[in-house]
């Protein structure tokens, strides 16, 4: 196959536009953040342009490492739960009639329109002692007295998964709906149980999509900063919460920028590692 050179200025313009948008909305803000992370912090005020590594050196505290590790583990846990729940769910949707598929997808898209704030407050209310679900369970005779399930780690994980679940399904839906029905059918004809079919044939064929969904939820939950405040205890505050504290409440932009960039570096490294590992195993499987 020969690569065709773009013809005429119009073809170049087609490249120019995305490049411009990428530059305007991503490269410039990101470069600003990198620059600010080297600026000098004036305690009790703002910052002055400089080049120093103090903001990065200040990250070497037990507090920062503990919160960093917790944030990454929390992201991985939510990603694992979302994929584990989302994959069978999406598979189930794709086996439905077209009309019902659309209904489900519209419903999931509608959930996306809820903001993090609304989701956080709704869950904290639903999990509360005074007005929450436990009251319903007491009514039904399943529990003795109403209890509070929030704030806590379980509440936080629940909230984050609720937030990320629609994205998981939307990432998994296209490859699953393209999955050739002949493959699972063949497996069934050859005597595999439905469960075995699902895990060996469906999961096996879709490994790339599953890794992609996992990474997306992982990265997405790393950015949540309101839910940990509303549904979590202070030791569940993620790095995003601390970054917000530095940027918004202490007006310490250089420190916040340094934290954000370091955090991003570590996350990208982990994502890269996941992808490399995913690729390396492929030949053995094929």
């Amino acid at each position, binding site marked *: 196959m020969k690569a065709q050179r773009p013809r005429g200025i119009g073809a170049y313009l087609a490249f120019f536009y995305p490049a411009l948008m990428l530059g305007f909305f991503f490269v410039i803000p990101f470069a600003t953040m990198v620059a600010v992370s080297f600026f000098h*912090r*004036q*305690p*009790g*005020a*703002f910052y002055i342009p400089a080049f120093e590594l103090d903001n990065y050196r200040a990250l070497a*505290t037990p*507090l920062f490492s503990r*919160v960093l590790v917790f944030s990454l583990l929390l992201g991985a846990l939510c990603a694992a739960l979302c994929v584990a729940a989302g994959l069978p769910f999406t598979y189930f949707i794709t086996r439905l009639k077209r009309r019902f598929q659309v209904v489900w997808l519209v419903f999931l898209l509608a959930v996306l329109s809820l903001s993090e704030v609304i989701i956080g*407050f709704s869950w*904290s*209310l639903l999990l*509360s*002692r*005074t*007005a929450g679900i436990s009251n319903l369970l007491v009514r039904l005779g399943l529990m003795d007295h109403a209890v*509070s399930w929030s*704030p806590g780690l379980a509440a936080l994980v629940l909230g984050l998964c609720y937030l990320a679940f629609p994205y998981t399904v939307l990432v998994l839906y296209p490859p699953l709906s393209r999955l050739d029905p002949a493959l699972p059918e063949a497996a069934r004809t050859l005597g595999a149980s439905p469960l075995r079919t699902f895990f060996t044939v469906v999961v096996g064929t879709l490994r790339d999509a599953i890794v992609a969904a996992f990474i997306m939820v992982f990265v997405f939950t790393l950015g949540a900063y309101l839910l940990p*405040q*509303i549904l979590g205890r*202070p*030791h569940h*505050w993620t790095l995003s919460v*601390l970054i917000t*504290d530095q*940027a*918004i*409440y*202490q*007006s*310490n*932009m250089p*420190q916040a920028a340094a934290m954000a960039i370091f955090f991003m570096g570590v996350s990208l490294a982990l994502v890269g590692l996941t992808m490399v590992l995913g690729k390396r195993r492929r030949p053995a499987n094929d």
Partner: protein
Amino acid sequence: MRKAVATWMLVFGCIIVIGLSAPVSAGQKVLKVGTYGGYFKDSFDKHIFPDFTKETGIKIESIAEPTGEAWLVQLEQAARAGQAPADVSMIAQTPMLRGQRSQLWAPLDLKKIPNSKYLLPQFIHRYKDGRVDGIGAVSWYITLVSNTNVFKQPPKSWADMWTPDKKDKLGLLALPSNSFLLEITAKTFFGGYDILNSKEGISKVLKKLAEIKPNVKLWYRDEGQFQQALQSGEIPMGQYYHDVAGLLAADGHPVRSTFPKEGGVNDSGCWAVSKASKKLEEAYIFINYMCRPDIQAKLARKVGTAPTVRREATGLTDAEFAAVSSDIPPLIPRYDLYTGDLSDWINQKWTEMVTR
């Protein structure tokens, strides 16, 4: 194709109509005023701004500010780009001092604010060189609030928050610079603020404060996070704003606000003008209006804030004054802790204490 043309004609038509109508309204003067979003802004929108417009002809565009420092950062960043998201903003003391460091606040001429003569002296805020940069807008108290259904007896002291029966029942502000819990702890358990003069002393206070952690269910950054839980009794006690608690009680919610015997924390907000604003003349008219004793009295009655002008000028009755203030000497925050060279160290130690 024809449909597309029609759409474009409609779009251009709209642009032209908007363009024509803009100069008509430009004849009226507009001032963008920022106050804290929620109950506070609603009360200003309802009780203060319409009368001001009626009297002066200046229309107020009311802007909802996020609590505390967040608004300062936005104003600061915008001013660097020559923009003013609000011309006049209500700014608490810590952000006032932080903004001073970068000369964010436009210097004000007291001659253009004749009503400033009614103000209590501490409510004229100045740069170190003596230029005025803020005029006291309202003052408010952070007090000990409780849900009356859960606690039949009102608490008496800040120390009541430390008792074991409050396990998992408190809502406290999450940051040293908006909770002033260092001051509260120092006054309640160490006999005063002297202990806050050294790192060793502050560490001792933080250690005492750490004992309260099992009792705290929510460390909140934004008052909205706590309000609902306080009303419902989910989190039946904590520190909160006396004025909002009063408004909640007036709306029939089972909430009471108590001035502990060590005193409530008295914080205040200034009217300050961003240096990027081009509406300084209108701002003077607005600030002067807000300093009028009868307007300060109206704020006390309708919004529940304590006046920044001398009490005798306001004509508030004893009962009205007692509802917004207290005879117990207040705890005045140590703003220098949060704006001085120790501020980053304090924040680091605080975060370690809270999140451990």
